[in-house]
């Protein structure tokens, strides 16, 4: 996407360019033959007519016809406003319109003001501006990598997982489940609890499966069945799976590994996992390298055994950035990355044209930096900020390339915007160019106020 033309005409506030608008303005009243003027204008007008005026009218005409080109009246417009896809698109466009230009302009302002005060300002500006040199398509593809779910490949999730890991390191057997859910079932409040109860002197065998190879510590040794001892409730927690298959379920076969460091709790007074639960934890132990555990010194009575949920905590793997809920926000993030540099450069240009005396005067009068920024810099910059904002708004309204490259098919519906919907119904399989044209007209009407506003501003500035 290239920088829109109107951007190039931005003039920073300051003294007008020259008296009377320069020599061209002075001559404009002179008596040139009108045919000469027309002759010079003709090529440009012809191009304008062919490339702009004709398509606009053709689109309006086409929007009144159905997919096969038969007259359809306003039916396309009816279909457009009753389809869920368009409504989602309008909603998303609204989010884009409210969020993206504001964030980009704000960031651009911050960057512009800050770069005035740092050394290496040019290098910094260059880096921030660099994304503008990349096509939206390429930026979209870059960000599909950033937003990849797998923290091993996606930058965003890698960062999140890294930060999260510092605060709550997880070392659980995620994915592990009981071999037989009727013996070891979900405990009230998470984790697993044995269905039957044990008395001191008995042994328990708690079989788990689905333990990921990566979760099994290197020190894990082959499991052994606990030997009964008077007064001791002993047992084994082990990975009930023989490499290559063929093991007996629920039985400790040779080669099956014990699960080290599993927290086991003895619960008294509970009804087991089959009942309403309850009971209180009377003792907690951890298994050794062979998966063995033993409670000694328990009061006589019956206890059920519980493996609390912390044993099975799923590791945090970040967010599904491109899933249905986050997709629009994720794409806006990519847009902000791309366009902040653009806003920064324009605002910096405006900033350099602000009369220094005004700032100096404010500082001499005792204004703090924040007051100077708010009461002097921002008001003086307002015309530039408005231009940047409006330009971005027009740009955001037509957003298409980032959305189509970033949103995976499965969440394209949720990330839909008007320009994408227009393409989808016209070419992306729908093949209804009537409906597509209607959407095009609608988009045009939406962009129109911003365009008119911009044009009027330019007129005022020219005067």
């Amino acid at each position: 996407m290239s920088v829109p033309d109107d951007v190039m005409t931005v003039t920073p506030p300051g003294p007008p360019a020259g008296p009377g608008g320069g020599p061209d303005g002075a001559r404009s009243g002179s008596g040139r033959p009108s045919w000469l003027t027309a002759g010079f204008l003709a090529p440009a007008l012809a191009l304008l007519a062919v490339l702009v005026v004709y398509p606009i009218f053709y689109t309006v005409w086409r929007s009144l016809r159905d997919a096969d080109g038969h007259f359809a009246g306003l039916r396309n417009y009816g279909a457009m406003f009753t389809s869920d896809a368009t409504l989602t698109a309008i909603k998303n466009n609204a989010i884009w319109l409210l969020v993206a230009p504001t964030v980009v302009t704000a960031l651009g302002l911050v960057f512009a003001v800050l770069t005035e005060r740092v050394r290496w300002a040019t290098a910094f500006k260059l880096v921030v501006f660099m994304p503008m040199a990349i096509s939206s398509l390429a930026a979209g593809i870059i960000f599909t990598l950033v937003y990849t779910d797998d923290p091993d490949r996606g930058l965003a999730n890698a960062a999140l997982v890294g930060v999260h890991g510092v605060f709550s390191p997880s070392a659980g057997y995620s994915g592990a489940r009981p071999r037989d859910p009727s013996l070891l079932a979900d405990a009230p409040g998470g984790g697993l609890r044995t269905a039957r109860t044990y008395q001191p002197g008995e042994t328990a065998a708690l079989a788990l499966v689905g333990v990921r190879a990566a979760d099994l510590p290197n020190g894990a040794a082959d499991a052994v069945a606990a030997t009964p001892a008077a007064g001791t409730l002993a047992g084994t927690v082990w990975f009930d799976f023989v490499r290559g298959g063929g093991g007996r379920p629920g039985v400790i076969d040779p080669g099956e590994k014990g699960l080290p460091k599993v927290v086991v709790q003895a619960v008294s007074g509970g009804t087991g996992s089959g009942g309403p639960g309850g009971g209180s934890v009377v003792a907690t132990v951890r298994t050794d390298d062979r998966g063995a555990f033993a409670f000694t010194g328990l009061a006589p009575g019956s206890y059920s055994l519980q493996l609390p949920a912390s044993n099975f905590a799923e590791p945090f793997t970040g967010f599904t950035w491109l899933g249905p809920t986050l997709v629009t926000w994720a794409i806006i993030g990519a847009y902000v990355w791309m366009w902040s540099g653009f806003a920064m450069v324009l605002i910096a240009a405006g900033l350099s044209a602000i009369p220094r005396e005004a700032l100096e005067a404010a500082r001499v009068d005792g204004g703090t930096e924040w007051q100077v920024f708010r009461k002097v810099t921002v008001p003086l910059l307002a015309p530039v900020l408005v231009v940047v904002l409006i330009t971005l708004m027009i740009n955001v309204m037509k957003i298409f390339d980032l959305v189509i490259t970033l949103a995976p098919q499965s969440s394209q519906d949720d990330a839909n915007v008007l320009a994408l919907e227009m393409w989808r119904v016209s070419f992306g399989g729908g093949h209804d160019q009537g409906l597509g044209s209607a959407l095009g007209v609608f988009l045009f009407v939406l962009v129109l106020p911003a365009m008119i506003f911009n044009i009027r501003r330019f007129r005022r500035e020219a005067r």
Partner: protein
Amino acid sequence: MRHTMTFATRLTAAAAGLALALAGCGGSSTSPGGGATTTPAGVSLPDLTGQKLEVAAVWTGAEQAGIAAVLDAFSAKTHATVKYTATGDDIATVLGTRIKGGQPPDVAFLPQPGLLNELASDGSLKPVDADVAAAVDANYAPIWKTLGTVKGTLYGVWFKAANKSTVWYRTAAFDQAGVQPPASWDDLLKGAQTIADSGTTPVSVGGADGWTLTDWFENVYLRSAGPAKYDQLAKHQIPWTDASVKTALGVLAQLWGKKGLVVPGALQTDFPTSVTQVFSASPKGAIVFEGDFVAGVIASETKAKVGTDANFFDFPSVNGSPASVVGGGDVATALKSSPGAQALLRFLASPEAATIWAKRGGYTSVNKNVDLAAYPDDTSRKIAKALVGSGDAFRFDMSDLAPAGFGGTPGGGEWKILQDFLANPTNVDGTATKLEAAASAVKFPT
């Protein structure tokens, strides 16, 4: 749907390597040259000295080199000059333009039966002569004759085919769990459960690409409902709310909906990733289903060796259904009534022509008289065997046959609805209703 087809083509091309890429600049001519001294036994063809033939197809890269070898052999036998033109992916547009301009190629390879129907109905195609028809009868299962026939007239010879009923697996994961390649859906579910017990999430699904999901559905539907229903559903003669559709969705849900069987994040996983995450150095899955072109992805994107580290089994039978294959293919058809075109079709219908390409690899023929020994490795031999062995139980990819608005729209139609179903596999009835609504919104060819 063009995407799968195109994708397969691209993959094979990618696997081709540099030398062949250099040849991919659109045309390769073969002139008879001096020495047509040895004429191997096989089809007898007329002498076409001085005749010029043009052949058009979508193939580039390795596939272009393959067809060039076949055409070279034809030139050597007949002394005709054959020029090959690669049309790019949108062959329908290229041919349409050239037919309108009165300059069609002599023979074209069409990647879809729909295009054959369309061009034949326009009168743009020339029927095959009696010799070609006899060769087709002798060398192909009847289904291929039916697929090449439009309104009672035979127009085409199915020269190349793709098998989309192959389920690929990491042999190490199967060994680790002690699981054998399953022959039935129930065994697949059991095996997947065992693999899950062993600590590996078994099934990798590339759900970010809708077409992989339609291929899942089509394979299950062909097996659970049978070929007759499949044909009716493909033409939308029965509604998608039919009990057979719900049954097939229910079968799929047994796998997709069981906790722990599908690698998480399937809807954000595109097709290449769904393959690489099974066969990479730190694998996340054990099984991935897609067509024979998966072999190309494994070979080019991972370090796994096809045949040893990676292998495939035929899509398992559902409730004892007979061997059947969902797939695609390219049909050769004549656009000009020249003796050369008919001679070429007769050659293409012979086992001899297919054997030439088969030996080079990256190709599967449905010609039942091609010696399976011609294929360069066990994997391609097994793919070909499944394809030929399915006989009349071969069916074209249903979403390829459907209008693009239903079967080929990213983020819409069948693709999107099956993605929603993957996200919520309990919603069988709602999915069927949505599929029917989407199918009713487009016009199916009759």
